[in-house]
């Protein structure tokens, strides 16, 4: 795990083809620009976590209730 400080305007290079630049800094948030190949998925972490939780929840139920629903 690398922890590093960057000032506004500074960048990080990750691997051969990913670049991260700090574009703006506010009190509570940082604006980040990411340049990466299309094959690399970039996601807000909380979104991934929410989908993960929803998937886990979705596997935990007896689907016999579906018999009671008709279109």
């Amino acid at each position, binding site marked *: 795990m690398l922890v590093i400080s960057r000032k506004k305007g500074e960048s990080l290079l990750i691997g051969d083809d990913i670049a991260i630049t700090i574009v703006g800094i506010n009190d509570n948030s940082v604006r980040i620009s990411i340049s990466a190949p299309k094959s690399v998925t970039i996601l807000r972490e909380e979104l991934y976590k929410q*989908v993960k939780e929803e998937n886990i929840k979705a596997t935990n139920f007896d*689907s016999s209730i579906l018999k009671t629903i008709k279109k």
Partner: protein
Amino acid sequence: MKICTKYHGEREYEEKDIIIFNKGLPGFEYLKKFILFPVEENEVFSILHSIEDDKIGFVVISPYYVMEDYEVDIDDEKIKELNITVSEDALVLNTVTLNSEIKDITANLQAPIIINIKDKIGEQIILSDDKYKIKYPLFREWKYVSNF
């Protein structure tokens, strides 16, 4: 080949029915092999079931039952990864989260499962815009009739 699923009884399947999820699914990254079969009591729903873990199966639904104008924008890179060459090969499904209250049953429209039905490859894509909800109520568009 056969699996004894936890909630859906015994299912027979063949090698050619197996759908490979190279990345697994969020929360189940280690499960790569699934089969898809319709729910007997209600053909609107299907089950995407792991053949590696008999307890893990997802109720899934075609999003167009839930929302007529549902649109998924998948970039070319992803389409290539899934080997999809014609739109007929692509199947879009969304997981359904059940609830004992029918009105609280939801579909995850933010993370569609895209399956190349010809080559049997699948992936769950998380859409990065917030156009659709992770918990979209199903019953909104349907009138439902109870069997009781």
